[in-house]
Protein backbone atom coordinates (compact mmCIF):
# COMPACT_ATOMS: atom_id res chain seq x y z
CA UNK A 1 0.00 0.00 0.00
CA UNK A 2 1.43 3.34 -1.10
CA UNK A 3 1.24 5.95 1.66
CA UNK A 4 1.45 8.77 -0.87
CA UNK A 5 -0.48 8.42 -4.12
CA UNK A 6 0.64 10.51 -7.07
CA UNK A 7 -1.36 11.13 -10.22
CA UNK A 8 -1.04 10.92 -13.06
CA UNK A 9 1.88 8.50 -13.14
CA UNK A 10 2.77 9.53 -16.70
CA UNK A 11 2.14 12.78 -18.54
CA UNK A 12 3.23 13.80 -22.01
CA UNK A 13 2.39 17.32 -23.13
CA UNK A 14 3.40 19.88 -25.74
CA UNK A 15 5.66 22.79 -24.90
CA UNK A 16 3.63 25.77 -23.72
CA UNK A 17 0.81 23.78 -22.13
CA UNK A 18 -0.14 23.99 -18.46
CA UNK A 19 -0.36 20.96 -16.21
CA UNK A 20 -1.16 19.93 -12.66
CA UNK A 21 0.03 16.85 -10.82
CA UNK A 22 -1.34 15.64 -7.54
CA UNK A 23 -0.11 14.00 -4.37
CA UNK A 24 -2.70 12.50 -2.02
CA UNK A 25 -2.62 10.61 1.24
CA UNK A 26 -4.91 9.50 4.03
CA UNK A 27 -2.20 10.50 6.51
CA UNK A 28 -1.44 13.92 7.93
CA UNK A 29 2.11 15.11 7.41
CA UNK A 30 4.03 17.82 9.21
CA UNK A 31 5.44 18.87 5.84
CA UNK A 32 5.35 17.86 2.20
CA UNK A 33 8.26 18.18 -0.16
CA UNK A 34 8.43 18.14 -3.95
CA UNK A 35 11.52 16.88 -5.75
CA UNK A 36 12.52 16.56 -9.38
CA UNK A 37 14.68 13.68 -10.47
CA UNK A 38 16.41 13.31 -13.82
CA UNK A 39 17.72 10.01 -15.20
CA UNK A 40 20.94 8.88 -13.54
CA UNK A 41 20.72 11.48 -10.81
CA UNK A 42 19.35 11.75 -7.31
CA UNK A 43 16.22 13.77 -6.49
CA UNK A 44 16.65 17.53 -6.09
CA UNK A 45 14.43 19.39 -3.64
CA UNK A 46 12.16 22.00 -5.26
CA UNK A 47 10.08 23.16 -2.31
CA UNK A 48 8.85 22.30 1.17
CA UNK A 49 5.34 23.22 2.29
CA UNK A 50 4.54 23.21 5.97
CA UNK A 51 1.32 25.11 6.70
CA UNK A 52 -2.12 23.83 5.66
CA UNK A 53 -3.38 25.88 2.71
CA UNK A 54 0.10 27.20 1.97
CA UNK A 55 0.92 28.21 -1.61
CA UNK A 56 4.49 28.62 -2.82
CA UNK A 57 5.68 29.78 -6.22
CA UNK A 58 8.97 28.97 -7.88
CA UNK A 59 9.07 30.76 -11.25
CA UNK A 60 6.51 28.87 -13.39
CA UNK A 61 5.85 26.26 -10.69
CA UNK A 62 3.10 26.70 -8.09
CA UNK A 63 2.87 24.35 -5.12
CA UNK A 64 -0.10 24.06 -2.80
CA UNK A 65 -0.50 22.17 0.48
CA UNK A 66 -4.03 21.05 1.31
CA UNK A 67 -5.82 22.59 4.27
CA UNK A 68 -5.80 19.27 6.13
CA UNK A 69 -2.08 18.68 5.32
CA UNK A 70 -2.86 15.39 3.58
CA UNK A 71 -2.46 16.39 -0.05
CA UNK A 72 -0.56 18.69 -2.35
CA UNK A 73 -0.52 19.80 -5.96
CA UNK A 74 2.10 21.09 -8.34
CA UNK A 75 1.01 23.30 -11.22
CA UNK A 76 3.38 24.17 -14.07
CA UNK A 77 2.55 27.07 -16.35
CA UNK A 78 3.76 27.11 -19.95
CA UNK A 79 5.78 23.91 -19.65
CA UNK A 80 9.19 23.79 -21.30
CA UNK A 81 11.30 20.80 -22.42
CA UNK A 82 13.63 21.50 -19.49
CA UNK A 83 10.76 20.63 -17.13
CA UNK A 84 10.94 17.01 -18.28
CA UNK A 85 11.68 14.66 -15.40
CA UNK A 86 10.24 12.61 -12.56
CA UNK A 87 8.37 14.70 -10.00
CA UNK A 88 8.27 13.12 -6.56
CA UNK A 89 6.30 14.21 -3.55
CA UNK A 90 7.50 13.19 -0.12
CA UNK A 91 5.94 13.49 3.30
CA UNK A 92 7.66 13.92 6.62
CA UNK A 93 6.24 13.33 10.06
CA UNK A 94 7.81 14.85 13.14
CA UNK A 95 10.88 16.08 11.34
CA UNK A 96 12.82 15.13 8.25
CA UNK A 97 14.59 12.04 9.45
CA UNK A 98 12.28 9.57 7.73
CA UNK A 99 10.81 10.89 4.53
CA UNK A 100 8.21 8.80 2.67
CA UNK A 101 8.17 9.22 -1.09
CA UNK A 102 5.37 8.75 -3.57
CA UNK A 103 5.79 6.77 -6.77
CA UNK A 104 6.29 9.93 -8.82
CA UNK A 105 4.85 11.53 -11.95
CA UNK A 106 6.96 11.10 -15.05
CA UNK A 107 6.59 14.26 -17.14
CA UNK A 108 7.66 14.62 -20.74
CA UNK A 109 7.43 18.01 -22.42
CA UNK A 110 7.65 17.74 -26.20
CA UNK A 111 9.22 20.69 -28.06
Amino acid sequence: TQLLEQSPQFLSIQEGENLTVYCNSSSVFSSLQWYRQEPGEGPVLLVTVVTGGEVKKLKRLTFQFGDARKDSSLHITAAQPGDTGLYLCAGAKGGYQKVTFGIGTKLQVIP
Partner: protein
Amino acid sequence: GAGVSQTPSNKVTEKGKYVELRCDPISGHTALYWYRQSLGQGPEFLIYFQGTGAADDSGLPNDRFFAVRPEGSVSTLKIQRTERGDSAVYLCASSLYSGNEQFFGPGTRLTVL
Protein backbone atom coordinates in the same frame (compact mmCIF):
# COMPACT_ATOMS: atom_id res chain seq x y z
CA GLY B 1 32.04 22.48 -2.73
CA ALA B 2 31.51 18.90 -3.79
CA GLY B 3 28.13 17.31 -3.49
CA VAL B 4 27.30 13.82 -2.24
CA SER B 5 29.28 11.21 -4.12
CA GLN B 6 28.61 7.50 -4.38
CA THR B 7 30.82 4.70 -5.60
CA PRO B 8 30.65 2.65 -7.65
CA SER B 9 28.13 4.20 -10.02
CA ASN B 10 27.25 0.75 -11.31
CA LYS B 11 27.73 -2.66 -9.74
CA VAL B 12 26.89 -5.97 -11.35
CA THR B 13 27.15 -9.04 -9.18
CA GLU B 14 25.97 -12.61 -9.05
CA LYS B 15 23.28 -13.98 -6.80
CA GLY B 16 24.73 -14.94 -3.43
CA LYS B 17 27.69 -12.56 -3.53
CA TYR B 18 28.54 -9.81 -1.02
CA VAL B 19 28.61 -6.14 -2.07
CA GLU B 20 29.60 -2.86 -0.47
CA LEU B 21 28.29 0.51 -1.62
CA ARG B 22 30.03 3.68 -0.51
CA CYS B 23 28.68 7.16 0.19
CA ASP B 24 30.74 10.32 0.72
CA PRO B 25 28.45 12.98 2.17
CA ILE B 26 28.89 16.73 1.88
CA SER B 27 31.66 17.80 4.22
CA GLY B 28 30.33 18.84 7.62
CA HIS B 29 26.94 17.19 7.21
CA THR B 30 26.05 15.30 10.36
CA ALA B 31 23.04 13.37 9.08
CA LEU B 32 23.23 10.68 6.41
CA TYR B 33 20.44 8.64 4.84
CA TRP B 34 20.26 5.59 2.58
CA TYR B 35 17.33 4.94 0.25
CA ARG B 36 16.57 2.26 -2.32
CA GLN B 37 14.77 3.09 -5.56
CA SER B 38 13.39 0.23 -7.60
CA LEU B 39 12.44 0.70 -11.23
CA GLY B 40 9.30 2.82 -11.55
CA GLN B 41 9.13 3.56 -7.83
CA GLY B 42 10.01 6.43 -5.56
CA PRO B 43 12.93 6.16 -3.15
CA GLU B 44 12.29 3.93 -0.14
CA PHE B 45 13.91 4.83 3.19
CA LEU B 46 16.43 2.30 4.50
CA ILE B 47 18.46 3.83 7.34
CA TYR B 48 19.40 7.18 8.88
CA PHE B 49 22.62 8.07 10.72
CA GLN B 50 23.13 10.97 13.06
CA GLY B 51 26.87 11.15 13.49
CA THR B 52 28.28 7.65 13.84
CA GLY B 53 25.16 5.98 15.14
CA ALA B 54 22.21 4.54 13.25
CA ALA B 55 19.31 6.59 14.63
CA ASP B 56 16.67 4.74 12.61
CA ASP B 57 17.27 1.46 10.73
CA SER B 58 13.62 0.50 10.47
CA GLY B 59 13.71 0.54 6.68
CA LEU B 60 16.33 -2.18 6.25
CA PRO B 61 14.44 -5.07 4.61
CA ASN B 62 16.18 -7.93 6.45
CA ASP B 63 19.38 -8.88 8.22
CA ARG B 64 21.30 -9.26 4.96
CA PHE B 65 21.49 -5.47 4.87
CA PHE B 66 23.82 -3.55 7.17
CA ALA B 67 25.28 -0.05 7.11
CA VAL B 68 28.08 1.64 9.02
CA ARG B 69 29.44 5.14 9.44
CA PRO B 70 32.43 4.62 11.75
CA GLU B 71 33.85 8.15 11.75
CA GLY B 72 30.67 10.10 11.20
CA SER B 73 31.45 10.91 7.59
CA VAL B 74 31.73 8.19 4.91
CA SER B 75 29.13 5.45 5.08
CA THR B 76 29.10 1.95 3.62
CA LEU B 77 25.98 -0.06 2.87
CA LYS B 78 26.71 -3.77 2.95
CA ILE B 79 24.53 -6.46 1.41
CA GLN B 80 25.22 -10.12 2.08
CA ARG B 81 24.05 -13.06 -0.03
CA THR B 82 22.59 -10.80 -2.68
CA GLU B 83 19.31 -11.78 -4.33
CA ARG B 84 17.88 -10.72 -7.68
CA GLY B 85 15.25 -8.70 -5.84
CA ASP B 86 18.00 -6.50 -4.41
CA SER B 87 18.55 -5.00 -7.87
CA ALA B 88 17.79 -1.29 -7.62
CA VAL B 89 19.40 2.13 -7.43
CA TYR B 90 20.76 2.79 -3.94
CA LEU B 91 20.66 6.49 -3.11
CA CYS B 92 22.52 8.25 -0.35
CA ALA B 93 21.62 11.69 1.00
CA SER B 94 23.12 13.97 3.62
CA SER B 95 21.93 17.02 5.52
CA LEU B 96 23.67 19.52 7.77
CA TYR B 97 21.57 18.40 10.71
CA SER B 98 18.57 16.13 10.89
CA GLY B 99 15.56 18.16 9.85
CA ASN B 100 17.47 20.16 7.24
CA GLU B 101 17.23 19.74 3.48
CA GLN B 102 18.59 16.43 2.24
CA PHE B 103 21.03 16.50 -0.66
CA PHE B 104 21.10 13.34 -2.73
CA GLY B 105 23.95 11.64 -4.51
CA PRO B 106 23.59 10.17 -8.02
CA GLY B 107 23.10 6.67 -6.68
CA THR B 108 24.66 3.27 -7.26
CA ARG B 109 22.83 1.04 -9.70
CA LEU B 110 23.07 -2.52 -8.38
CA THR B 111 22.24 -5.40 -10.69
CA VAL B 112 22.13 -8.91 -9.28
CA LEU B 113 22.25 -11.59 -11.99
